[in-house]
């Protein structure tokens, strides 16, 4: 396969395969969880499950003072990584064009310099998290292959994208194709690994908030 064929494949059939697997996988995962069901509660509701559910989805995006007393690296690097990754993914002009080709609409992009900074922050945060995972005895013991696999699958698009924007030696065509492929691998892996938290996190938060809401307690 030549460089051109590689690029054409990842832009066409490769993206189709990745999207198909991603959508099938995520719909399947969400529906399977939903259909587990709950027994009908016969108690009189003491509050709204919707307001508490949605409120919890939002509130748990923020940390609390008590949580900062431990896991400081995870907390700080975790926040930096998530914000940096999302900004990089959704606000680089080239990425907006990709989303436009997938969704049919786009949105304003941020300046490339800012995206370069977020990409560097994202890469640095991921490296810090990996170092912490390898050096902290408890975290290391708790880690399995999936933690390292998902780390790599998240790191790969960031580093190839950074090299692409900053033109570090490797031919643009190969690097662009590799970068798109890295995103496709990430898409494929999401439904079948703990990366599915991109959606299930919000379902869990809603559920926790909703059951507390029905019982009339703080979630």
């Amino acid at each position: 396969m030549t460089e051109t064929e590689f690029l054409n494949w990842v832009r066409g059939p490769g993206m189709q395969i990745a999207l198909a697997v991603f959508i099938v996988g995520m719909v399947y995962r969400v529906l399977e969880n939903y259909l587990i069901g709950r027994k009908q509660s016969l108690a009189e509701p003491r509050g709204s499950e919707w307001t508490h559910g949605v409120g919890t989805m939002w509130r748990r995006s923020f940390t609390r003072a008590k949580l900062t007393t431990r896991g400081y690296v995870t907390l700080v690097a975790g926040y930096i990584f998530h914000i940096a990754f999302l900004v990089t993914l959704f606000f680089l002009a080239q990425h907006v064009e990709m989303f436009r080709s997938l969704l049919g609409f786009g949105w304003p992009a941020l300046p490339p310099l800012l995206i370069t900074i977020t990409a560097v922050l994202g890469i640095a945060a991921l490296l810090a998290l990996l170092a912490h995972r390898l050096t902290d005895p408890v975290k290391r013991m708790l880690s399995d292959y999936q933690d390292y696999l998902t780390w790599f699958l998240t790191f790969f698009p960031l580093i190839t994208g950074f090299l692409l924007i900053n033109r570090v030696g490797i031919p643009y065509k190969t690097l662009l194709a590799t970068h798109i492929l890295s995103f496709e691998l990430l898409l494929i892996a999401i439904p079948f690994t703990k990366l599915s938290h991109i959606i299930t996190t919000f379902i869990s938060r809603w559920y926790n908030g909703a059951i507390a809401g029905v019982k009339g307690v703080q979630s």
Partner: protein
Amino acid sequence: MKDTRTVGEILSSQGISRRGFLKFCAATASMMAMPPSMVPAVAQALSNARRPSVIWLSFQECTGCTESLTRSHSPTLEGLLFDSISLDYHHTLQVAAGSAAEEAREHAMQENDGSYLVVVDGSIPLGNPGYSTIAGISNVDMLKETAAGAAAIVAVGTCAAFGGIPHANPNPTGAVAVSDIIKDKPIINVSGCPPIPIVITGVLAHYLTFGKVPELDDLGRPTAFFGQTIHDRCYRRPFYDKGLFAETFDDEGAQQGWCLYKLGCKGPVTYNACAVSKWNSGTSFPIQSGHGCFGCSEPDFWDSGGFYRPLSATTADVGTLAGVAALAGAAAGAAIGRMNRSHRARAQARHEKLTIDDIEES
């Protein structure tokens, strides 16, 4: 008749001054990224070079490559140098026709066996030999026959170099490149649709100067001309780096000369010298005239997802696919959910409650 005069002698007989000739040598050396100290060597080698016999074969092509070469700089030194090559066979340019033309080719091949250059433009159809013939000879037969005694082959244009437009999907004629057929001769790919004239003359000048093919990239193209991308040398590159893009061909950004990435420019993945040498005596090149690069010097440029689609955009239709995938996921999720529920119901049905009697018995 075989002309044994050197290129230098022919140039002076045509009124080209030594000064003009050296300027050409300096330009050629510069284009080939050679240091200034090489200019005298180029000049000496070129002026002492014997006119090599060149046989130009035109197969499945549009004559654009020849148009590019003949019209671009006329009458300039490049053109005259080209005159100074003994062009013994060329459909469009030669006077002879019919059997006389074929005789010229055969005569040139016999007289210069092992030392002539073959220039090919156009792809070669393998689907049916009858798709393209010259004097009743199929393209593939003529290429093999002519290449046998050649010193080297220059595949001019993307069709000859990579198959080009005839090779594009669905490739009805089974078109292939020269390098797909000829395996035992040095081949220089001068791709482009059409190629830049100075790149063609530069390659020939290099061959005359050094007597060997220039350094080539992995696609067989001279690195002196195809070593950098259009994007690397584009004067609009600062706008790309600042994230300033034209959204349409006539918006404010387009008028300000901003980057054409969003309008489908393939400059970042296209290796060619357009941004450096430009076209029409250095007047302009596509991006300078407000249109993105097509990527015409790259293989499969016609099938690379559309000229106006940004490089980062997907080229496949994903709307229907997304709908089908969502339905498939829903069906799979519902089926598994149902199985889980019936499994739980069976487990509950099998469950026997422990009574006080059971405990006492045990």
